[in-house]
C-alpha cells in the first residue's frame, strides 16, 4: 500500500513535469496548427543548458531558472518562425517533417558538443525529506511540483487575462479576423514558440534532476507529452495538463510494477485507446 502511494507520488511528480511540455505543445499547436515534433528536443536544450550552468558556474536553483527563461525565449522565438516557412506552402506533411528534422538537428548538435553520455545535475535541490506519519516525501519532489504548478498557473492566467494572451487566442480562433484587428500573426507565432520553449526547458531542466541530461531525453519525453496533449484534445490547455498528469501516473505505475522498458508501450497503448474511443480527446468537442 505504501509502495502504491510512493508510486503515485512519483507519478504526480513526473506528471507535473510532463504537463509543462504538453502545455508547450498545445501553446504552439493552437495558433499555428503545427504539431511540433521538435518540442522535446528544443526542451532538452534547457536541460543541457541548466546542467552545464550549474556545473560550471555553481549557480543555485533559482538563478539557473532565471537564466534559463530569457535563453529559452530567444531560442524558441528564433526557431518558431523558421519552421513556419513551410506553413506558407500549406502542407501539413512538410511542416511535420520539418519540425521532426529540426529535432534531429538539435539532438545531433548536442551529441557533437557534449557526447552521448548523460550529465547529472549537482545537488542544487534540497536533500531533506518531509516525514509524514506513514511515508516521507522528498522536499525536492515538492519543490518540483510547486515550480510546475506556479508555471502552469502563470501560463493559464497569461492566456486568460493579458492582452497578448487574448491576441494569441484570437489568432487561434480566426486568423483573418485577427489580422484585420491589427494583430501581427508572425509576432504571435514567435511569441508562442518562445513561451512554449520557456516552459518546456524549465520542465526538462527539472527532469534532468531525475534522469540526467542525455541526447534521447527529448524523444523519450515528447512521446509522453504528445499522449498527454492528445488525451486533452490538443487544443485545451487544462486538458493537456490533466492528460499529462494521467500519463505520468500510468507511467510510474507501469515502471513500478513491471519495468521501465514497457513505458513506451504503455504510452502507445494509451494513445491508441484514446484515439479509438475519444479521437477528439476528453476536453474538446470540436474535431482535431
Amino acid at each position: 500500500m505504501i509502495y502504491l502511494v510512493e508510486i503515485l507520488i512519483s507519478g504526480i511528480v513526473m506528471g507535473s513535469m510532463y504537463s509543462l511540455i504538453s502545455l508547450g505543445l498545445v501553446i504552439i499547436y493552437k495558433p499555428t496548427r503545427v504539431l511540433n515534433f521538435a518540442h522535446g528536443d528544443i526542451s532538452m536544450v534547457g536541460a543541457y543548458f541548466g546542467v552545464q550552468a550549474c556545473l560550471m558556474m555553481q549557480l543555485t536553483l533559482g538563478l539557473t531558472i532565471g537564466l534559463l527563461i530569457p535563453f529559452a525565449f530567444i531560442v524558441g522565438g528564433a526557431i518558431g518562425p523558421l519552421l513556419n516557412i513551410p506553413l506558407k506552402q500549406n502542407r501539413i506533411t512538410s511542416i511535420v517533417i520539418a519540425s521532426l528534422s529540426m529535432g534531429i538537428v538539435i539532438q545531433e548538435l548536442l551529441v557533437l558538443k557534449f557526447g552521448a553520455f548523460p550529465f547529472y545535475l549537482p545537488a542544487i535541490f534540497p536533500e531533506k525529506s518531509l516525514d509524514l506519519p506513514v511515508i516521507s516525501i522528498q522536499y525536492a519532489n515538492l519543490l518540483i511540483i510547486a515550480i510546475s504548478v506556479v508555471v502552469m498557473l502563470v501560463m493559464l492566467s497569461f492566456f486568460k487575462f493579458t492582452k497578448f494572451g487574448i491576441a494569441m487566442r484570437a489568432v487561434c480562433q480566426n486568423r483573418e479576423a485577427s489580422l484585420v484587428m491589427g494583430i501581427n500573426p508572425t509576432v504571435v507565432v514567435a511569441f508562442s514558440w518562445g513561451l512554449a520553449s520557456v516552459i518546456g526547458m524549465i520542465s526538462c531542466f527539472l527532469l534532468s534532476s531525475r534522469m540526467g541530461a542525455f541526447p534521447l531525453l527529448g524523444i523519450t519525453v515528447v512521446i509522453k507529452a504528445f499522449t498527454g496533449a492528445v488525451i486533452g484534445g490538443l487544443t485545451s490547455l487544462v486538458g493537456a495538463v490533466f492528460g499529462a498528469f494521467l500519463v505520468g501516473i500510468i507511467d510510474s505505475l507501469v515502471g513500478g510494477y513491471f519495468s521501465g522498458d514497457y513505458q513506451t508501450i504503455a504510452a502507445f497503448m494509451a494513445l491508441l485507446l484514446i484515439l479509438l474511443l475519444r479521437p477528439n480527446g476528453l476536453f474538446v468537442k470540436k474535431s482535431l
Partner: protein
Amino acid sequence: MIILLGIPLIVSDFYLYYVDLTLIYAILTTGLNIVLGITKLINFGFASFFGIGAYATGASMMLFNLPYLPSLLFGGIVSSFVGLLLAVPGVRLAEIGFALLTFAFGEAIVTVIGHIKFLGAYNGLMFPSVSIGLLDLKGNFRLFYLYYPIALALFIIYINVMKSIIGRAFIALADRPVAAQSMGVNVNRYQVLSIVLSSFYAGIAGGLFGPLVTFIDPGSFDIMQTILIFMMLIIGGTGTSIGPIIGAGLLIFMPEILREFSEYQNLIYGIILLVFIIVMPEGIWGRILVWQSGRFQRKR
C-alpha cells in the same frame, strides 16, 4: 533495364554491397511514397514495418523451416497485416492523429521486439543463411541477382497500380477528399489500402535486408531509420516514380563519399532534410519534371 543487370560485372564487391543496399532502399522508399507521396499520410513508424518484415522472414525460416522465398512473402504479409491493424483505427483520425499514432507505434515496436527472446531481444538476431533450391545465396554478387528482379517487379507493380483505378483513387482522395468521396471513392477504405500496400513493400524490403547484413537488431529500425527513408523520398521527389530511386541511390552513396564526416552524418542529414523541405519541397526529380513541363509550355 537489362543493361543494369551487368552492374555486378563492372563494380567491385565493396561497392556492390552499396548497390544491393540501394535496391532495398529503393523498394522501401517506393513503399513510403505510396503513403507519404500519394495519399499524403504521415507514417512515422515506417521503419518498424521494415523491421517487422525482416524479423518475420527470419522467424519463419528458423521456426517453421520454410524456404527463403515463401518466408519473404510471409514477411511481407505479416508486415501488411500489422499495417492493416494500425490503419483501420488510424485513418479515422485527422492527419496529425495518424502521424502521432505511428510515431508512438514506432517507439513501442522497438521495445516489443527487444523483449522477444527467440528473436534475440536487444542483442539482435543472426539472420539464417538463405538459398533458393540448391543455389546458395551468399555474397553481394548473388544477392544482386535476387534483389534486382524483385525490385524491378515491385517497381512495375507500383507503376501499374498508380495507373489503375486504385492509383487514381489514391491521387484523388489526397487532392480533394470531398470531391473524391462524392465520385464514389471510399476515402477511408482506400487510405487503409494504401497503408497496407506500403507496409507490404516495407516488409519485403525487410526480408531482403536480412541476408545482406546477416545481422539485425531492433535498434536499426527506430526513428532514425524512418528519417533516412523520409529523406530519400523527399530529396528524390515525393509523389514521383523515379524520385525514390534517385533519393535512395544518393543517400546510400553519400556517406561513402563523405566518409571523413561520418561523425556529422546525422546532423548533415537533418540539415539537408530541413533545407529541402523549406527550399525545394518537390525534390530533385520533381524539380526536373517542373523544368521539363515549363520548357514544354514555352515552346508551345
